[in-house]
């Protein structure tokens, strides 16, 4: 997270992949929570309007 291009370039292949996948998992978690939030909000707003 937040590493410079130079730091990324100095990593070995496996370090880079590990770093990228760690970031990917965090991104995926945030996006999944967003999606769940939109779903919940849809139900909440409609239930509130009924």
């Amino acid at each position, binding site marked *: 997270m937040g590493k410079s*291009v130079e730091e*990324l*370039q100095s990593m*070995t*292949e*496996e370090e*880079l*992949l*590990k770093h*990228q*996948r*760690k*970031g*990917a*998992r965090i*991104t*995926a978690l945030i*996006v*999944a929570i*967003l*999606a*769940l*939030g*939109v*779903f919940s909000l*849809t*139900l909440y707003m*409609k*239930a509130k*309007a*009924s």
Partner: protein
Amino acid sequence: MSTTTTDLQDEIEKIDGHDSHDDHHHGPEPGLLRWVKTTNHKDIGTLYIWFAFSMLLIGGAFAMVIRAELFQPGLQLVEPQFFNQMTTLHGLIMVFGAIMPAFVGLANWQIPLMIGAKDMALPRMNNWSFWILPFAGTMLLSTLFMQGGGPAFGWTFYAPLSTTFAPESTDFFIFAVHMLGFSSIMGAINVIATILNMRAPDMKLMDMPLFVWTWLITAFLLIAAMPVLAGAVTMMLTDRNFGTSFFDASGGGDPVMFQHIFWFFGHPEVYIMILPAFGIVSQIIPTFARKPLFGYSSMVYATAAIALLSFVVWGHHMFLVGMPIAGQLYFMYATILISVPTGVKVFNWVTTMWRGSLSFETPMLWAVAFVILFTIGGLSGLMLGIAPADIQYHDTYFVVAHFHYVLVTGALFSIIAAVFYWLPMWCGRMYNEKLAVIHFWWAIISVNVLFFPQHFLGLAGMPRRIPDYSLQFADFNMISSIGGFAFGLSFIMLTYIIVDCIRNGKPVEGGRAWESARGLEWTQGEKAQYHSFDTPPSRATILAESSHISHEGQH
């Protein structure tokens, strides 16, 4: 296999907690199990594209039933109830089974190759995203064989048609839509995680090819829109089975609210199906114009602007439902505003071609056809967005003509263009150019014979979703049906061209299929290897392969 790669594999296993030797150490696993277990982005992309093509043929067969019934006035071949099932399933299958999975397939194949990544960020979730689809598609299609028939309420499944008055099979339809939505959301998560995290270290966001940009924005649209659809069908489910009345006026619910919720999903959905098409065309035109893409950054901002605006215009689908005049004015102006960023795009494509060294190989033919015909669809969309005019056009064949120009000559044509453009790289073989050109002209003429007369039918007042019509609509309906059968037949030829290319095509020689194609995907040699980018591409390679930077003087 080098020690470094073995270590890398061990690292992947530590992170993944599973043994993925088969996928990463060697080539593909032999036999059919390869396709079930694969986590390779190219395999999964291929699966998506073949699945989408199968669904296109099934949805197309339903369209043939519709056009056969409408060939002449009067009830000819099928019962009205079955006709309604055909219109409903044609729409659902084409949207959720054909167009969307085809774009996800292209994303799977191309995004990692275009950003210098080894694979998608979450390969096993990628496998899961795909394998949900065949089950969801089968469940949706199986409703046709259930008691009471399949869903017959149109692809928009407005309540109370889809709740109080729907057949029992609707619960299976709801489950299928849930699964399709779940698959799309997982696909979108994967695309976002891949683009944001797996790019080559030296690739900045504004270095990314337009196709990758459009898909990143599309993925965010999916994340914001698909859960709304999931919410709508969940409320339908509870209204039908658990005694709630979200959309039942007799229980204090509001059926019109269903339409608001549906179109809050539905309008962004239209852009989910067209933004990746913009990306594809933005890759193809510079290649065959032999010029860098004009206005790259404006293309990126225009795509983002279209995506944002898509969430604030849903009311233009509902002008006739009953809306305050201020609401009508707002939705009208907001809708018309979308033509600004869309116009930027069309201008940039035309300007890219302007004074280029143009050649018209098959992908370029499809791309140019896209620009012209999508613009026609966009212009009829502007007409529909004008609230007072929409009173005349609403629910007529004019709407049918409009959205088929956008989704067939827009989205589908871009997918065909993409397949012809990248197929030589995918399989290392070139298709039969002569046959492909004949197919193009066959399709382009027939598709216009099919859809253009529908504008006149709509303007004359023929309503959509009816199996029978007044005599004054007979001639244009017959012409439209003839075009429909000819366009349907063109897909047999397309199937032959693709299968012939894969099995017997002339091997591509000399590195890349198109001499002026640029992009990291073309650095893989004649054919994309099963595993790509063991070493991330350098900054110099990224810049040299950019299709939006001028390379004048390099050749």
